[in-house]
């Protein structure tokens, strides 16, 4: 038993040491293409579309649009694009001029989640 304890001691020590440096963000699918682009200014878009670096889980991935003050700007809910598991879109019926914030959440097929936001301005 003592021999077993002595054998495992260095492994337990190294494992504990490694656990102290676990990064807090463990997420995998990153946005690759965002329409409208971050920090862009242009005509009001009819939809927001984000394409991620890998396939995402539609049930756990979403896009929400708010005003710069944080009020919801779109009653619609985002949806996946049929045949393209990497893209989700949010339809926008009409958007008055102003600056808006796009909040996105994605869960990649390997189960890891990432979230973020960016702004664009509609003329």
């Amino acid at each position, binding site marked *: 038993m003592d021999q077993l304890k002595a054998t495992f001691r260095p492994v337990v020590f190294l494992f504990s040491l490694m656990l102290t440096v676990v990064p807090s963000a463990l997420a995998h699918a990153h946005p690759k293409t965002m329409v409208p682009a971050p920090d862009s200014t242009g005509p009001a878009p009819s939809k927001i579309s984000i394409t991620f670096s*890998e396939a995402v*889980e539609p049930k756990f991935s979403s896009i929400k649009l708010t005003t710069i003050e944080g009020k919801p700007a779109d009653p619609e809910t985002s949806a996946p694009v049929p045949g393209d598991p990497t893209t989700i879109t949010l339809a926008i019926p009409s958007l008055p001029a102003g600056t808006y914030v796009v909040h996105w*959440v994605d869960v*990649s097929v390997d189960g890891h*989640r990432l979230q973020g936001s960016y702004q664009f301005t509609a003329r």
Partner: protein
Amino acid sequence: MLTLFPTMRICADALCDIAYTALAGALLNRLWLGRVSICDRPLRISLIACSAILLVDLPLQFLLLSASMIGDTSWRDAWGAVLDVGATHSGRAVIMGYCFVPCLLLFSFLPTSLKRTKSVLIGIALEVGFIACRALHGHAASNGDFTLREGIQFLHLSAIATWGGGILVAGLITIPYLASIAELGDIVQFGKRLSETVTIALAVVIPSGIYNSWEGLGGSLSPLPNSAWGRMLLLKLSFVLIALGHGVRVRFLLSTQDPWTQSRTSIMQKWVRAEALFILLVLVCSAWLANLPPADI
């Protein structure tokens, strides 16, 4: 509480990797022992223990997966999302893998009167099924199912289970047990069988590992020192090389023509145990890599 979820995910993944690898190792050790039945009891206990660990660990992994998908808010929220998680790709892979676990547990209680080779092959078939489900879960699944990447991942996990599991169980259970009660000839025969199988497994581990690493690095070596994934890969690689170094020493020891002595048994026991410990660290690094964003994104 929130910061505990990522750490718990790595621990649960590492525990699962160690358990199914050791399970494969216990099966192979039974096969390599041939007609030597003196080690049946500890190997059977290992099989039962590993299956029992998987039986508890996989539901925990599923709950932690649920927590990950909803943003690590709370256990209650994670529990509330389990049905939706069951419909996702990763959720299904965990559930499918879990189906093999009770079968493995039942298998470990099979009477030893059953013909040894046949019974071990049943166990290996169950283990292969479990590994196939494991290959569907993780970075390899990001390009879709039944892809080359998933196929290579399956080969990699199977070969790691053969190499790692074989050495882990041999170094920590079988060889110490044999050294205390078996004849020297039995130990040498066991060592040679172990060495031959491990050499074949390594011929798969190395190329499939290089392929997986290249995919994870996005086809470039520059992220190796500049990303968390790359640095963890370097750490894993260094543990693999140290383990391999010990394996090469054992192979040379077994290949010398001098008569086998008790002192050589002690040296072999020491080196295989050291290799087993580094394999444990390799498995922990693998679980860690599975929870880090790969460098290609």
